């Protein structure tokens, strides 16, 4: 390798290492500051500043969905440790139902969450319908607890 190429290689290498180090630091810093959502137990622990607009994330508690007049709906979001009642007036996404992961944007009103937008979070599992039904049946037959209901191919 000629000296010029060697010099270029070292320079480019050094710049890349510096860029990688800078990015790592930014990512580490964002890890603490960049919060896409809060879970109900985090809200109950007082991690959210008063009056702030934020996102709440968790699972729709089974049997908690109450539909009011026209598009008004209320449900409980749970993360297993804490529950939070969410009120919403608008169109829900297709995937919204019991035990679905949802993310709602809004703010606290008293001790319940008033949402302006409700999004459904999809998981990374893709299963044909008949396979899912067969697994569901087998789970019920063998009394597998509800947490294991999620099909895994």
């Amino acid at each position: 390798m000629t000296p010029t190429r060697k010099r270029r290689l070292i320079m480019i290498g050094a710049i890349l290492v510096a860029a990688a180090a800078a990015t790592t630091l930014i990512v580490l810093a964002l890890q603490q500051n960049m919060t896409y959502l809060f879970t109900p137990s985090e809200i109950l622990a007082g991690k959210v500043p008063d009056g702030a607009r934020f996102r709440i994330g968790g699972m729709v508690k089974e049997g908690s969905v109450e539909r009011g007049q026209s598009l008004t709906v209320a449900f409980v979001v749970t993360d297993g440790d804490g529950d939070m009642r969410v009120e919403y007036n608008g169109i829900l996404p297709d995937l919204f139902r019991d035990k679905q992961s949802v993310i709602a944007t809004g703010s606290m009103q008293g001790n319940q969450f008033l949402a302006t937008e409700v999004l459904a979070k999809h998981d990374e599992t893709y299963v044909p319908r008949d396979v899912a039904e067969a697994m569901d049946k087998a789970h019920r037959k063998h009394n597998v607890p509800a947490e294991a209901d999620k099909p895994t191919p």
Partner: protein
Amino acid sequence: MNTLSLWFHKFGSPPTFYRLSRLLCPWLFAAACLIGAVGLYAGLVLAPADYQQSDAYRIIFIHVPCAWMSLFAYIFMAANAFIAVVWRIKISEILAMASAPVGAMFTAVTLLTGAIWGKPMWGTWWTWDARLTSELVLLFLYLGVIGLFSAIEDRRQAARAAGFLALIGIVNVPIVHFSVNWWNTLHQGSTVRLLGPSRIDASMLWPLLLMALATHIWFFASVLARSRSSVLEQESGKEWVREIVQAQGVRRE
């Protein structure tokens, strides 16, 4: 010189590259179309509907291969840019710059199909979560490379300057890939994993892998096609180009 570096130098010479890519291009395009057609048919017709999203999930057969390609194209571009900046090999400069528009196209398709799927499934076209934002940054990096390359008059200088930008931007690639693990995102985690079991049924996985193969071949086909015309353009004064032009019986006005 050993055989590998000999081969490398031979392939790196513009006339050989031109002839080889002219030979390969039609075959690669044909293979990509054929495999893509089979993959699309398998994905859209043969694969069963999902238990949760029914038929709407079928957009993954476009979305996921394009998303993989958006990262793959960037790595390919950055690797060639690295060779171009350090060793000043002309073909690497051309290959790096040829892959930028192709990669940008794959990124745009990824963002577009993601938005179309996101509206009915999530309930929104767009959200500023880590995965979506970093993928958008990836698109801007591609556009920046293309823009910088077009802004400088001298082709070789332009390729090295834009290649330098491409090299720095490589730090975004792991961020895109790992964003769903590092942060709480609306976007779901990886379905297909190289390590450990994939979270997709085999009947849905094989059309997806076919589509991934088709998009890879398409990428190389269009990069070679673009590079071939750039090689001709940049070498237009050289003897071998004159020979090719004369052999084809084309007279310059």
